[in-house]
């Protein structure tokens, strides 16, 4: 059976060049980067070179970049670390209504278990939030605002500069989850004026298990882990040297290819949207047509459940996603689409196709061959779908 991978927002295959770069650090250069001997020094040099490269990529100082295990950990350190640092003076936080659970859940934990006040910054029907709205929500006691740069489900690119400006002008720290953005669009922490920014390697053809958190010089956060002086005590634990090297290499490739990737993916997604809308009635594009990460195409097939489409496509070898998967693998309706005010019949029938470097027109043509009959079959069984 043909296999088509259209779930690049979930994760990406590691580029062979990245694997190549990592191999020495899974082999002969094995030293602990914190050791004083020559073995340690070799690893330490590789680690710091990687830090320098990655920092340069987002226009931060190397000293402002802290390695973590990935996006979820970076988000948790940003939210919880700020809250614990400021808890004697502040008790309120604001997160975007379409955030990833890696931001939502620590925020909800603070709200439910530690008496923090929590507001969610609403979005409009395309997923955008306004700085005026944020202004209204900020209180004297607000510690942090966290709003993601590009949304994982819809690709909506938020105007972070304006939102960060609103927070900073009131003395409130601003964090952005940029795991779906770094390496795909230009991300510059100085231009965005954010205090903290999460990034990860595996969404951009790097290895899993390595990410980073940019923390602007002067911003204080309480660590969540204790046990060593690694990462300046903000994230102790023996460094994942091979991971950081792979991360740096993945970004180097992304930088080299950014324009080309962007152009290809825009072309492919335009082709995809046009063909699907043409072939299948009652399809809605979720999120904006422009101002989005082009590889993300989120479509609602009115009157049917996304889960059934997802599983039927998988049985044909086509991998995509619907809503967010939980541990058990059961799908829940997307909180992102619900926050965007999508009617239930549209939110339930949403499917995210996310393309990548290896995606071809031929693969999309295979999808066009398989998708219409699946939609037709499911609609013929649907108690709620009425042909218009």
């Amino acid at each position, binding site marked *: 059976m043909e296999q088509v991978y259209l779930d690049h927002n979930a994760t990406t295959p590691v580029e062979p060049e990245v694997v190549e770069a990592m191999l020495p650090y899974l082999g002969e250069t094995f030293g602990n980067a914190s050791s004083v001997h020559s073995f340690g020094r070799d690893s330490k040099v590789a680690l710091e070179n990687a830090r320098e490269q990655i920092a340069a990529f987002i226009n931060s100082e190397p000293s402002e970049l802290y390695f973590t295990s990935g996006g979820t950990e970076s988000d948790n350190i940003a939210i919880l670390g700020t809250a614990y640092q400021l808890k004697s003076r502040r008790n309120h936080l604001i997160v975007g209504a379409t955030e990833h659970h890696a931001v939502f859940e620590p925020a909800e934990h603070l709200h439910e278990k530690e008496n923090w006040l929590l507001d969610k910054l609403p979005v409009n029907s395309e997923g955008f939030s306004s700085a005026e709205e944020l202004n209204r929500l900020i209180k004297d006691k607000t510690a942090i605002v966290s709003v993601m740069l590009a949304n994982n489900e819809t690709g909506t690119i938020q105007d972070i500069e304006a939102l960060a400006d609103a927070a900073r002008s009131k003395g409130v720290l601003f964090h952005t989850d940029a795991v779906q953005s770094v390496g795909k669009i230009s991300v510059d922490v100085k231009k965005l004026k954010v205090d903290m920014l999460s990034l990860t390697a595996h969404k951009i053809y790097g290895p899993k298990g390595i990410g980073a958190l940019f923390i602007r010089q002067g911003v204080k956060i309480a660590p969540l882990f204790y046990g060593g002086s690694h990462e300046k005590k903000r994230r102790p634990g023996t460094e994942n040297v091979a991971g950081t090297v792979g991360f740096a290499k993945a970004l180097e490739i992304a930088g080299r290819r950014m324009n080309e990737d962007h152009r290809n993916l825009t072309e492919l997604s335009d082709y995809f949207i046009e063909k699907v809308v043409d072939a299948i009635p009652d399809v809605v594009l979720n999120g904006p047509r422009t101002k989005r990460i082009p590889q993300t195409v989120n479509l609602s097939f009115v009157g049917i*459940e996304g*889960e*059934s489409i997802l*599983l*039927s496509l*998988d*049985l044909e070898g086509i991998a995509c996603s619907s809503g967010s998967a939980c*541990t*058990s*693998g*059961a*799908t*829940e309706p997307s909180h992102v689409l619900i926050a965007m005010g999508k009617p239930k019949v549209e939110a339930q029938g949403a499917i995210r196709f996310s393309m990548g470097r290896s995606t071809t027109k031929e693969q999309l043509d295979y999808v066009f061959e398989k998708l219409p009959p699946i939609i037709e*079959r*499911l609609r013929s*069984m649907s108690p709620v779908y009425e042909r218009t």
Partner: protein
Amino acid sequence: MAQKVLVAMSGGVDSSVAALLLKERGYDVVGAHMKLWDFVDVGGDIYKDGRCCTIDSITDCRLVCDSIEAPFYVLNLSREFRSTVIDNFVSEYNVGRTPNPCVKCNSDVKWNEFLRKAEQLGCDYMATGHYAIIEKNGNGRWHIRKGVDGTRDQSYVLWGVSQEALSKTLMPLGEMKKTEVRQIAQKYNLRTAHKPESREICFVTDNNYRRFLDEWNEKRGNEFEPGEIVHENGIVLGKHDGIAHFTIGQRKGLGISHPTPLYVQELDTKTNRVIVGENDALFTSGFQANQVNWIGGSPDSGTFDAEIKIRYLHKPSAGKVTPLAKNRVQVEFFDKQRAITAGQSVVFYNGDAVLGGGIIA
């Protein structure tokens, strides 16, 4: 092209072997686990092993499917399960009746929502690891027969399944003994081969149904009304904290002292009384049942003899069944039976064939 079948997998040895056997027989097998409830809703211990709907059981299903090269999915049916099975379970107990949630789950969730999912995925059949046999009769109707392994037979919980649903169902374990099923699992090295079985109510994770009822009702603002415990001779013996906590034939937990053992005879919702009496008084022969479904087709006319089973572990006993209007029946056992309990299923058999069933009124 091979016929496609969606196998309902709990994470136990039975459904694992069912999937394996169908694969061996050349079906295009897809495994699916029904996520029916969440620990946050039902309470209990999230780390307890061996139950379906836990992450560990899902992992077991996943790895079994991988070993037989079948795709595997988790289907979230918790909304449907709550609104049909759990709500019914609670409301039945609240009015002094003792429900069979598995029967309700079979007719309203498995052979309804799950079957719908199977059809949506383009499957020709759904399958389960029940010990029962489904076959088509000369008259064109689908019948259920008892599983060959008398100690495992599950035909009792299947009386509510519709003809349409039966026509699309495979039960590959019906002709097998449990020991054979375990042997096959071992032979193929399935990771569920030695898993102990669970026979309790899946969503009452600690087997403490009173705890479950109390929590569920409390969360929804329902309060139990205390009342009197009365001897059948009219003497008030004590107080109770709500009739939902009792079931017919129960002896323990009555909180009364009496020279002879007393058993719950009746739960009177009108007077909110728990009526108790001697063991002998629990034996009766006649009752009515409603919501009757005739698996073998409606009986031609009048009264007929059948073997009648009134709870999961009851040994069927002979009696007369008289169909009445509105899917009701009158049942008379030839020999009195102990603790005929309202809310439980009654199932009528002719030999090993299920004729039909209903809910004891």
